[in-house]
Each structure stands twice: as structure tokens, then as C-alpha cells.
């Protein structure tokens, strides 16, 4: 995999089918449905539970806005990812372009996906720092690799944004 900065985009080329598939799974991975821990993490309380009025108002007025924001970011990423569904041969490496204007949406969607996956599997701090664990083994190992791969992409996008603004 190679990452290049272009004038108006980040280009990830030589994506092997495995990494391309992990990228394709970003939108699906942001869905917390069915996992209470993930739902609670994405839509965390704004204050101590004792602040009942504040928490109730938050659910009513703010949470819908947050849901819209998260959905919008995921839709932007899903649209960019359609480039991976080209007509290339099944096991060929492929290329993805992330327009710079969509960088924030990517950061957001990647973060959603990482938080949801980590909440579903309850990864420990130790596991999250284990960047050398093979993705081959269990579904849990694969998901941990996915979280760390998405984190790597976030780091890269952040670095590029910083370089672009300086």
C-alpha cells in the first residue's frame, strides 16, 4: 500500500484486496445497532446521570443532530469508497482517492467505526496497543487489526491535514 498527497486529494494506491475489503467495511462498521455498549459510546451522556433534566433534553434535542452528523460523514465515505467497486480483476490491487474536502468526514467515520468495533469486542488497552498481532486467527483478532488499521489511516489523514495547513 502506498499513500501519496495530491493537490486536492490523498491517494492510496496498491491496495491489496484484503485492505480494500477492510476499507469497504467502514460504513457497515459504524453501525452500533444491536450493541448497547457501542450505542452508549457513540451517544454518551452529556453529564452525570443525576442531571436528569439535562440528560433528557440532550436525548431529545442534541442526539438527533449528532445522528445526522455521523450519518452524513458515513455517507460521504461510502460515496468515496465506490471507487473500489470498479471493474478490475477480483484479486488486483486498487487505488482510492480521498478528496481533501472530505478528510474530516473520513476522520469522523473512521472514529465511529473504531469506537463501535472496540465497544462490541471490549478490547483492553493492552490489546489496542498491540500493533503486531496477526489478523489471522479469530474474528476478534481481525477486528483488532481493523481498529488499528483505521487508526493508522486517521493518523495519516491528520498528518496530511496538518501539513496542508502549515
Amino acid at each position, binding site marked *: 500500500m502506498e499513500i501519496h498527497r495530491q493537490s486536492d486529494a490523498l491517494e492510496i494506491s496498491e491496495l491489496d484486496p484484503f485492505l480494500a475489503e477492510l476499507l469497504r467495511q467502514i460504513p457497515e462498521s459504524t453501525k452500533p445497532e444491536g450493541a448497547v455498549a457501542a450505542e452508549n459510546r457513540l451517544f454518551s451522556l452529556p*453529564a452525570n446521570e443525576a442531571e436528569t433534566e439535562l440528560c433528557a*433534553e440532550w436525548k431529545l434535542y442534541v442526539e*438527533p443532530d449528532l445522528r445526522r452528523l455521523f450519518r452524513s460523514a458515513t455517507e460521504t465515505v461510502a460515496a468515496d469508497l465506490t471507487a473500489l467497486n470498479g471493474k478490475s480483476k477480483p484479486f488486483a490491487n486498487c487505488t482510492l482517492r480521498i478528496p481533501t474536502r472530505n478528510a474530516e468526514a473520513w476522520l469522523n467515520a473512521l472514529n465511529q467505526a473504531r469506537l463501535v468495533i472496540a465497544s462490541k469486542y471490549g478490547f483492553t488497552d493492552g490489546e489496542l496497543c498491540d500493533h503486531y498481532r496477526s489478523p489471522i486467527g479469530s474474528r476478534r483478532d481481525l477486528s483488532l487489526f481493523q481498529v488499528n488499521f483505521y487508526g493508522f489511516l*486517521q493518523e495519516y489523514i491528520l498528518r496530511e491535514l496538518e501539513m496542508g495547513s502549515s
Partner: protein
Amino acid sequence: MSSQPRRGVMKVALIEQQRSTLEISPSAVEGVRCSTVDVFRASTTEAPVIEQEIREKEAVDLPWQVVVHNDPINLMTYVTMVFQKVFGFNREKAEKHMLEVHQLGRSIVWSGLRERAELYVQQLHGYLLLATLERAH
């Protein structure tokens, strides 16, 4: 943000209306939250009752703190960027708070009036940081 006014915002607007209707001095109204019922009363016949209620609620708007809590998922560089964007911190200050979160488990990143604090927490949640409002002690 949706176009629908949130309750806190409505309260502020109604307090403004109350000021002009009843000529209550700004210092008496400063930092006061009153319910919609209070305001309807204000616009009809029971003005003295309102003032009494205002006095009872004067303590409500003590400073609130915006607290960011540690979580193992958000990257340190990401948290730093969010602090810079949301609060306009320079790099050094943003990193100081980020490290406080990382090492101490939490950092008070802002304190002031509740409405503004709510807005900051909403923005931080939009970036998926664990953030809460707390009453200042």
C-alpha cells in the same frame, strides 16, 4: 444543528422578552433560568410572583465546566486537533490538555455559562470525544 430552537435557547429568548415587558433590571435577571410558565405569567397579571421565583432560582447559573475524559480509542493527535478546532487553543495548550486527559484521565478544558458549555460538549461529542458538563465547585 437543526433549525428547531432548543429549550435552553428558548428560555434565553423568553427572558429577553420578560426584561422588556416587566422592566426587571438586567442584574436581577442575569444568569436566571425560568420556565415557560413563568413567562406566560409575566405577560399576564402576576409579575410579583415572577420576581419571587427569579430570586429563588438565582443560584442556578453558577459556572459549569467542560470535562474531557480519557478513552483508549481516540488518538492523541486527533484529540489535540479537536481541542484546537473547538476551543481555538494553540498547539501547545491543546497538547497540554490532551496529555492531562491521557495521564490523569480527565481535563477541564473550559468553564463558564451553561449554554456555552452545552454547545462545547455538543461539538466535542460531534468529534466523538467523551465529554461532560459538570457544575463547578
